[in-house]
C-alpha cells in the first residue's frame, strides 16, 4: 500500500473524493432519519458475519497492544543466542528468532507501536481534516480556496515519498514523529471527503429551516450538518487505520521508520526476510498478523459503508 487515496478508492469503488456515499447519506435528510440510520446500521452490522469476525480480530490485536501481559508471560528481551531459530513448539508457539528471543512474545509486543501509531494518526487526521473540510465546505469562498490549495499541496506528495522525506529530514524516528508524518500527509483526504459531504448537505431544507429560526453558524455546523456528513468520514477512517498499520511497517522495512531494539511487526519482517527459505515461519507469523489486521480494517470499513449507505440496502 503506497497511497492512501488508492486504498479508499479500491474499497469504495467510488471516484476519489467520496462524493458517492456523502451525497446519499446527506440525502436521507433530518436528524431523526439519521438516528434511525445508525440504529439500522448497527442492526445490520451485528448480523454480518464478516464484520463480526473482522471486529473480533481487531479486538484481539487491540488487546495485544493494550495489555500484552494478557497474552504472554514471556519477556521478548530475554534472549540467548544458543536458542537461535528454534522452530515453533508447544511452549513457544512461534519458536525463536535469530537472536534466540521468544518470537511469540515479540509478536505480541510488536502490536503496540503499530496500533498506537495508527490510532494517533487517524485521530489527528479525523479531527484536523474534519474541521478544515467542514470550514471549507461551509464557508466556501476564500476559506475554501485557501484550504483547497493547501490540500492540493499535500496531495501532490506521493504518500510514501513524502513520509520518507519528512522522516529523513527530521532524523528522529519514533512513534510520535511517524504518527505525526502519517497525519500530516493524510489529513487532506478526510478534509476532501468532509468538504464534499458538507457542501451536499448544507443546502438541504432542514438546514435552511434551522438558519431561518436563527441558529448560529457553530450550531448549524455541529448539530445539523455534522451528523449527516460523518458517515463517509467514519468509513474512510476505519479503512485508513489499516493503511496506517501498513504504512508504519513499510517505513520500518525501508529503514526510515522504527529502529531496533523497538519491537514491531515491520522490524520482525525486515530482519528475517533472508531466512525465508530455511525458516519460513519467521516471516510468515508477522506477515500473517499484519495482513490479518489490515484485512480486518478494510472489511470493517467495507461493511460499515454498506450499512450506512441506504443505496446498498
Amino acid at each position, binding site marked *: 500500500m503506497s497511497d492512501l487515496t488508492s486504498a479508499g478508492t479500491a474499497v469504495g469503488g467510488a471516484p476519489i473524493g467520496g462524493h458517492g456515499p456523502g451525497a446519499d447519506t446527506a440525502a436521507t435528510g433530518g436528524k431523526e432519519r439519521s438516528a434511525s440510520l445508525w440504529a439500522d446500521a448497527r442492526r445490520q452490522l451485528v448480523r454480518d458475519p464478516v464484520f463480526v469476525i473482522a471486529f473480533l480480530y481487531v479486538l484481539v490485536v487491540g488487546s495485544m497492544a493494550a495489555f500484552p501481559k494478557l497474552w504472554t508471560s514471556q519477556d521478548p528481551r530475554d534472549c540467548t543466542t544458543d536458542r537461535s531459530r528454534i522452530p515453533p513448539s508447544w511452549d513457544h508457539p512461534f519458536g525463536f528468532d535469530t537472536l534466540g528471543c521468544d518470537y511469540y512474545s515479540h509478536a505480541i509486543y510488536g502490536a503496540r507501536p503499530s496500533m498506537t501509531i495508527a490510532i494517533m494518526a487517524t485521530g489527528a487526521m479525523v479531527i484536523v481534516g474534519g474541521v478544515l473540510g467542514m470550514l471549507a465546505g461551509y464557508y466556501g469562498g476564500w476559506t475554501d480556496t485557501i484550504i483547497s*490549495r493547501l490540500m492540493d*499541496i499535500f496531495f501532490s506528495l506521493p504518500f510514501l515519498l513524502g513520509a520518507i522525506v519528512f522522516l529523513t529530514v527530521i532524523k528522529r524516528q519514533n512513534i510520535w514523529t511517524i504518527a505525526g508524518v502519517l497525519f500530516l500527509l493524510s489529513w487532506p483526504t478526510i478534509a476532501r471527503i468532509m468538504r464534499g459531504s458538507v457542501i451536499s448537505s448544507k443546502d438541504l431544507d432542514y438546514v435552511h429551516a434551522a438558519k431561518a429560526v436563527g441558529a448560529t453558524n457553530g450550531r448549524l455546523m455541529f448539530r445539523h450538518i455534522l451528523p449527516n456528513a460523518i458517515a463517509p468520514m467514519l468509513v474512510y477512517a476505519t479503512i485508513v487505520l489499516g493503511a496506517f498499520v501498513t504504512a508504519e511497517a*513499510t517505513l520500518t522495512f525501508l529503514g526510515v521508520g522504527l529502529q531496533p531494539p523497538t519491537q514491531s511487526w515491520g522490524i520482525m519482517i525486515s530482519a528475517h526476510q533472508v531466512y*525465508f*527459505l530455511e525458516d519460513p515461519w519467521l516471516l510468515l507469523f508477522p506477515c500473517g498478523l499484519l495482513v490479518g489486521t489490515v484485512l480486518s480494517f478494510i472489511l470493517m470499513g*467495507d461493511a460499515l459503508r454498506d450499512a450506512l449507505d441506504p443505496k446498498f440496502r
Partner: protein
Amino acid sequence: MGRYVIRRLLQFIPTVLGTMFLLHYITSLAIQFSGNPVRALFGDRTPPPALLEAVTERLGYADPCLDQRFNPCLGLFADRVTGVFFQFDFGINLRQREVTDLVADAIPYTLKLLVIAIVFEAVVGIAAGVWAGLRGGSFADNLVKISTVFVISVPIFVLGVVVREFVGVKFGNVLRDQTWIPEVLSNGVFSPGFKPDYPFASLVIPGMVLGAVSLATTARLTRTSIMENIRADYVRTARAKGLANKRVIGVHTLRNSLIPVITFLGVDIGSAMAGAVVTETIFNVPGIGRLVTLSARTGESSVVIGVVTMLVLVVLVANLLVDLLYAVLDPRIRYE
C-alpha cells in the same frame, strides 16, 4: 476547452510552488533546530574544511536565516526555485555529484519498471474488471471481488519479499537446475533480484509486484464502472439500434466505463513511483527508488529532497495531463 485548460494551469502553478515551499520549509526547520546536516553526516570523522564549506555553500546551508528558528527563509527559497527552473539544479550529494546526474543514471531502470507495472495493471486489471462486471453476482464477480480485497490488504513489501523468495529463489532454483530452460527465463525473469545481464527480463517480476496493488484497485474500479454503465439507458438505445453485442459492449459501454479507470491509472503513476521505492529496494534494482532508500538510510537528506522534488514535479505534470485527458475523453467536462 480553452478556458478549462487555463483554469487548470492557474491552479497548477501555486500547487507546484506550494509543494516546493513545503519541502523547503521542512528542511529549513530541521537545520534551524539541529544544525548543519552536512557536518553531522560525516559522523565522528572530521571532514576536510574545504569540502565541508564547499558542500555547505553549494546547498545554501550557509544562509544566516538558518540560524533563526521558524524563519521561512524566503530568500533561500527563491534561490532554490530559480535554481530548479532555470538551471535545472536539484542539489548535490556529499561527494559533490549533482542529483540530476544520479537520477539520470537511475532513471532508465525505474522507467522500465514503471512501464511494466502500469501495462500489467492496466491490461490484467481492466480485463478482470470487465469480466467480473459483465457477470455481476456470478462466480467470476465474487472471485474478482474477494481476491482484490486480499491483494489490497497485503502490503507491497510483504508481497515483494514473499514473491522474491518463492518465485525468484525457490522456483528459480528449480528452473536453473533444468538445462532445457532458456537462460533468459531461469537467470533473467526468475532471478531473485535485478541482473545487469538481463536489464529487461529481470525487471518483469518486480514490475508485476509493483503493479499488483493498483491492479486490484483497477479491477474493482472497472467492475463498478461497468456494472453502472451496462444498465444505462444509452446502452439500451444501442441495443435498440440493432447493433451487435460486441459493439454495444465494446464501444458504447466500455468507452464510458473506462473514463474513471484511465483517470485512475494516470493518477496512479504517482503512487507507482512511491511504490517503486519499496520494489526497487527489495529486488535490488539500481533505480530512483533505491537511490531514495539508500540516501534516506544514510541520512543524506539533500539527495532525498532533490530526488523527491523532481518526482513531485513529474507527478504534478502527470496529474495535469490526466485532467486534460479526462476533458478529452468526457465531452461533458470540456464545455463546463
